């Protein structure tokens, strides 16, 4: 029996992406026959599995990759999907979590840096909508930025969701028999989340402190081709 602990504690929820659409971020990085294929996109896990092969074939055809890529792409997608599905049966504790999400990505010539708070408990949240609005508001011309932003947000949410599942499992194993109120603190202990109570209490105000203003402001930079090349070279070096 779970006793009601602190006001912020909620019962365990079945694992899913804490967004309106339960979409999985899929990252592909395949090297074969001297060609490297890197990609990132979102996938709907409720789509039938034959879609994976169809997608792989389409992509290979469109990008004129060698056909060996088809199976590799399909396999990679499938394994990431099955990882996701493995988590799906389990519980996760979300608690009262408002987490900061950081964006630091470069898409073609556009560089975006941003940080904002995201409510993990809002299961109606929509990273896609957010990404579209962000690009529109910041006047981003490159249409490939939107998906990248949405993907980045989803990836981070996915990470945190996985962590909460792990922590839920841990706490259940180690704290068997203890009262439920400890679960709330366990989720908070991840260190990332902010204490809502403190944030919205009488003493502090909702207005952000000055020193944080810069951190939370979005920055869009348009790079020149040389800068892009330089950055790419640096990334490659780091990767190795």
């Amino acid at each position: 029996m779970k006793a009601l602990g602190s006001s912020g504690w909620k019962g365990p929820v079945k694992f899913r992406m804490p967004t309106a659409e339960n979409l999985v971020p899929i990252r592909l990085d395949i090297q074969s026959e001297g060609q490297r294929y890197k990609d990132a996109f979102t996938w709907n896990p409720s789509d039938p599995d034959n879609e994976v092969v169809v997608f792989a074939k389409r992509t290979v055809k469109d990008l004129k990759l060698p056909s060996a890529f088809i199976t590799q792409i399909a396999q990679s997608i499938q394994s990431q999907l099955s990882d996701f599905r493995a988590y799906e049966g389990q519980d996760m504790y979300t608690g009262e979590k408002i987490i900061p999400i950081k964006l630091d990505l470069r898409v073609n010539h556009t560089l975006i840096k941003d940080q904002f708070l995201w409510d993990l408990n809002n299961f109606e949240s929509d990273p896609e909508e957010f990404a579209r609005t962000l690009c529109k508001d910041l006047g981003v011309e490159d249409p490939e930025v939107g998906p990248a932003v949405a993907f980045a947000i989803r990836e981070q949410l996915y990470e945190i969701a996985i962590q909460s599942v792990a922590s839920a499992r841990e706490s259940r194993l180690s704290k068997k028999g203890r009262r439920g109120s400890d679960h709330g603190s366990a989720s908070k202990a991840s260190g990332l989340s902010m204490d809502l109570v403190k944030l919205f209490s009488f003493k502090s105000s909702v207005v952000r402190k000055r020193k944080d203003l810069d951190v939370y402001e979005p920055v869009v930079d348009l790079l020149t081709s040389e800068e892009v090349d330089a950055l790419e070279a640096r990334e490659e070096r780091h990767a190795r």
Partner: protein
Amino acid sequence: MAAKAPDSGGSGEILPITPSLSETTSGVTAASQSTQPPSSSSDVDTVYVPSYSRWFSWTDIDDCEVRSLPEFFNSKSSSKNPKFYIYLRNSIIKQYRDDHPRKISFTDVRRTLVSDVVSIRRVFDFLEYWGLINHSSSSSAKPLKWDEKSAGDASSEPPTTVKETAKRICNGCKSICSVACFVCDKYELTLCARCYVRGNYRVGINSTEFKRVELSEESKKVWSEKETLQLMEAVMHYGDDWKKVATHVTGRTEKDCVSQFVKLPFGEQFVKESDSEDSLEAFDKIKGSADLESGGSDKEGSSPNKRMRLTPLADASNPIMAQAAFLSALAGTKVAEAAARAAVTALSDVDYEAEKNATGDPHRQDANANSGGDITNSERAWADAKSLIQKEEQEVEGAIKEIVEVEMKKIRDRIVHFEKLDLEMERSRKQLEDMKNLLFTDQLNIFFHTRKARKSEDRVDC
């Protein structure tokens, strides 16, 4: 979201030159045969949109889109809504037209759209299929099949040819079948048309078991009700795959099917434009069939009439009923509702005037069944309520009459009582008068006596 089917093409930025690629007049079915258009795409600025995609508009969603991509319109998920669909569709088309005439690939599109890739792929495939993107006017490639089989799977099944059999004898009435035959393979029966319609076969055999077999040349030109029904079913199921349609319609070739479909009077109304004519037609059919249905068998009443699942209704032994059901499916829910409502009103009036007995209900039920279950129970309840109201009125009138009578009786009684009292009073008064008179006479007597006495006293004294 409003799902209109606008006839005009897209916005003014594009010049849609629509070569006539298809024979069909309806905008729904895509052409299976794409002929070479006269003009070539030498001008890079003009984008060609095939005539079967004339419905496209930047701001509206057409019915065929709703049907092909239902996931955006069934409100199962909050973000997969029509607005999102429009965003995807318009972005894809814009992107294609920006780079026209270069063909756009799925990967190009999916990299630029914020969405999950499978939804993008579905919209992309849909648009490509309908020629709104990547449409080259010299396309001789076969369009994608409706259910996405690979292009190699285009093996044509030979359409069922007319069976040129010798004279057949009907098992039911033992007469020679001339016009058409109904063959039941399961039980190896052959029935002539009359026996089949009459239901002159063994108990236990369903009318679905029978297949129609054409016999005479004459029947080739004249399309029977059943054939028309089969044709329409097949078209709804298979869309533009006329080979499959021909196999479904027993005894007709592809060409026949196509030409017949074009000739159909409501072929035009396939495009969801419902006139009053259509509803009247439906109304007449419903009325006519309601009269025919004497037994009142409601096998149709129970089955739901979804668009794609026509077979339960279409297999009715009464072809007119089945056609009415099909019509109502074709014409759309609104028209069918209106027609059925009109039918129900008419029928319920007739019923009420005649007599309210059991025959009233099957009529209404048939009318309801004809409407294909689109009319809810509220219609029946409305007719019932009307008769109930009238009954109540009568009751109320009766009650008022009674009340008035009772009041009258009360008044009469009071009058009688009053008269009695009056009488009593009279009597008492009379008594009083008598007593007064008596008193007077007594007084007189006393007076006289006293005078006499005094007089006699005086005499004595002198």
